[in-house]
């Protein structure tokens, strides 16, 4: 079977170019081009995924140039999976958000699609690349396009939120770039595998230590690990729905992937856990991130805002899990990349539907929503249960591995934080459910009829279909987590 790994990145890139040109004619053509480009990328990602599962790691040299000079795409089971996840979510969101984009940015729809494609190009490139410097460039492509897309949100807040994001994002990127500079000076290569092989021989070098710290710090800023998270809630909650729906599930997860990649492939787990012995401190950071994220979410009065703090909390899960220093914890963290992406996508799909009908999603706007939007709420409830960690939704199973890893490492505080965060999330979501279910409070005792029946005002069908599909995925991914772990994650870690 011939696969085209390069097309995963190139199709959306060329798509962005043509969508930009098409914007002169008609925004609907831009949309069609975007859809086709994402379709091609998804198909390629799927074929690469099956190929990797069948015959192992794929190395692709751009234009035939060999590393260390040329650019290498290096796809193993881990990033094949993340590539598939990104492209599928980006494609589904295009289908789901068509009407939202039309409504929110009517005169700039084609610019939205162009930037959207560039954003996805960045994410896919970050995931596929085997080169440290390319990683930086692609992170910047992702970030620059997301600054623009966030600023497209039509409220006054979005410009400031975006600017804030720019400042902090640039700092994060600079840290990372500086770290890569150190690695280059020491090893003379930017290829991940080459650099890793050379660095193995110089584990006591303080330059490598500095490189490591800078790279990881930079990525932590980009992924919004508490207390480096301050840019995230405003940026994500003021972004237009069509973009919030992809940036929330994907951006932080891809950054977690980058962290895992740096740990596994570039610096090596032996270096991190044996030479530097950093596990404990970072697991504490993760613990604090979980609790702080959950606690701050409690204070929110807006659904979108609340969800963004849950993202901050979930990052704590993955960072803590990855740094537990055992296989269970790493398995849990990687599994959670997939699961959290699916459930955050489902949540934001549902929220997008609400925004489409209600415009605002402050808690007080949500009254009677079970009657008004029963299908949206059904998806929302299921996704919320997954965040809480109710079996058989997927959120339960990654939590299962994370807690097991915590027990194995003796990190009982981390296990406790995971349990407490489940309880906090239960409180957070049931607070919302109560408003949607009980309010506006009726006078009667519930007997007889309830006055005028609430009118059903659902979101566009395309959006609901996608939400339904993703909701099913929540359960399917959960029930098959054994298979996912056995075929995808365990082979990478051994």
């Amino acid at each position, binding site marked *: 079977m011939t696969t085209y790994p390069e097309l995963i990145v190139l199709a959306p890139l060329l798509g962005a170019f043509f969508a930009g040109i098409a914007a002169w004619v008609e925004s609907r053509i831009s949309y069609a081009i975007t859809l086709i480009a994402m379709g091609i990328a998804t198909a390629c990602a799927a074929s690469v995924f099956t190929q990797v599962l069948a015959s192992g790691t794929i190395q692709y040299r751009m234009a035939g140039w060999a590393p260390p000079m040329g650019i290498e795409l290096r796809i193993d089971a881990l990033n094949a999976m993340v590539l598939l996840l990104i492209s599928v979510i980006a494609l589904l969101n295009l289908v789901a958000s068509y009407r939202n984009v039309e409504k929110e940015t009517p005169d700039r729809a084609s610019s939205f699609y162009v930037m959207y494609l560039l954003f996805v190009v960045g994410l896919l490139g970050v995931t596929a690349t085997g080169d440290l410097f390319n990683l930086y460039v692609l992170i910047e492509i992702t970030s620059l396009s997301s600054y623009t897309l966030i600023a497209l949100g039509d409220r006054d807040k979005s410009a400031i939120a975006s600017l804030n994001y720019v400042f902090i994002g640039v700092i994060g990127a600079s840290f990372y770039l500086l770290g890569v500079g150190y690695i280059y000076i020491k090893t003379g290569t930017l290829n991940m595998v080459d650099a890793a092989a050379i660095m193995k021989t110089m584990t006591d070098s303080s330059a490598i230590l500095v490189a490591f710290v800078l790279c990881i710090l930079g990525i932590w800023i980009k992924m919004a690990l508490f207390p480096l998270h301050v840019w995230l809630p405003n940026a994500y909650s003021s972004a237009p729905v069509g973009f919030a729906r992809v940036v929330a599930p994907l951006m932080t997860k891809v950054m977690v992937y980058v962290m895992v990649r740096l740990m596994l492939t570039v610096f090596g787990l032996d270096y991190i856990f044996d030479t530097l012995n950093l596990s404990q401190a970072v697991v504490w950071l993760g613990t604090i991130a979980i609790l702080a994220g959950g606690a701050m979410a409690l204070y929110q009065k807006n659904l979108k805002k609340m969800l963004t703090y849950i993202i901050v909390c979930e990052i704590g899960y993955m960072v803590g899990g990855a740094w537990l220093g055992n296989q269970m914890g790493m398995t849990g963290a990687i599994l959670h990349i997939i699961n959290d992406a699916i459930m955050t996508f489902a949540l934001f799909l549902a929220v997008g539907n609400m925004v489409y009908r209600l415009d605002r999603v402050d808690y007080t706007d949500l009254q009677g929503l079970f009657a008004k939007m029963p299908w949206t709420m059904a998806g929302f409830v299921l996704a919320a249960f997954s965040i809480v960690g*109710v079996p*058989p939704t997927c959120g339960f199973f990654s939590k299962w591995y994370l807690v097991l890893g915590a027990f194995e490492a003796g990190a009982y505080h981390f296990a406790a934080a995971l349990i407490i965060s489940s309880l906090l999330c*239960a409180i957070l979501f049931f607070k919302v459910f109560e408003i949607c*279910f*009980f309010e506006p409070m009726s006078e009667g005792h519930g*007997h007889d009829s309830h006055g005028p029946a609430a009118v059903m005002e659902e979101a566009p069908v395309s959006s609901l279909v996608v939400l339904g599909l993703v909701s099913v995925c929540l359960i399917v991914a959960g*029930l098959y987590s054994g298979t996912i772990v056995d075929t995808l994650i365990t082979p990478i870690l051994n």
Partner: protein
Amino acid sequence: MELIPSIKPLLAVLVPLLVIPILVSSSSRPNVRESWIFIGGTIKFLLVVSMLPLVLSGKQIGLTLFQIAPGASIALRVDGLGMLFALVASCLYIVTSVYSIGYMRGLNEHGQTRFVSFFALAISATIGAAFSANLLTLYLFYEILSLATYPLVAHHEDAKSRISGRRYLTFILGTSIGLVLPAMIYCYHVTGTLEFSAAGIFAGQLSKPGATVLLLMFVFGFAKAGIMPFHSWLPAAMVAPTPVSALLHAVAVVKVGVFSIVRVITGIFGVDLMASFDLGVVIMTIASITILVGSFIALSQDELKRRLAFSTIAQLSYIVFGVALLTPTGLVGGVIHILMHAFGKITLFFCAGAIFVATGKKYISQMKGLGKKMPITFAAFFIGSLGVIGLPPSGGFYSKWNLLIGTLESGHAIFMVVLLLSSFLNAFYFLPIVYQGFFGTPEAAADETPGIQEANLCCVVPLAVTAVVSIVLFFFPGMFVDLIRLGLGI
């Protein structure tokens, strides 16, 4: 024990689930909707019964659905205990469905489709819990049941049900996530398995203090069993329509809690480990406190459903108590109380609901002289009371008898006092209701309208049926005892 692979347990779990879309789509035609409830309920019951002969012949039926990790799977297995519980739940579901038609239509309740749909989901989860082959699967169905019953508790959509619903979730979900989940994962961490086995899954990995803490996390964590101090969700849940209180909060939900504790004691810890660490006494003490305090509180309640709720809290602890005796007779006495109490208590709840439908009365003090107007209801109430007190000729006598023998057998004769005292208290809080009902004089003259005024037929027939069954069980407990012995391997 021989395991026969079959898809039947899965079907029994899924049937009500598959019926839900039909229920929702026929919401504007109540008769069609109700007939589908019966079709679903009957198929489920027949599926359960069809597995009975195999189980009675000493075999187990099961299948593994999903392998999550080595030693942790989502799997169903029908053994004696699960069969007993599934029989009770699926049979009473049909009876309750009849009753709930009478009740909900009699009161012209809103949201009936939502009500029956979540009811079906709840019963699905109950059967799933009964047929769970391991702790992970049990936990899964336990959680689904918690969440499926929330909309039923919150049914009235008013301020009171909002507060009750919140309390319900806080206790049920709070304990299951906060205590059971870490305890379960810890078990898996230590042993690498969660499969129930009569010998227990631990092989010397636990110290006595560790085992005690772990066991308490399970016993309190399965708060559906209503062990004090995690009991107060149950009286709060009484705001739900009476069919919910009757089937879910006297049979399905609460007994899933007790059933889970039974599984943990007999299948995870194992009777031998419990005995060697003397853990039985710890659990018996906790259960005894709940039995006595629950009974005393019941005595002081004037609202009938609340009195029944506190009585349920006390009776649930009988089951835990019996299992904690760790002797064959005690185990049989405890587990068979799942069955006996189910029929007794559901009768009492049906009666409470029938009185409310016919007269709108909720308080015991208003019920004087009502027996003359509702003789069938009050007669059934009397029989139900006998079952709960544990007097012949009701099935409840059989379990209490075994429990008493069990205390002697285990050498903890002092605990006999608890059982006897509790029986007296039970008699004190139930029999006056019956007496006042038949012989008391109504307070208001307006109540003096002569003649029989029973609730509608759909309400009366079910309560008569369950009352009769609860007497029949006194004479024919044999098959169920066999099931328990097979299930526990004693």
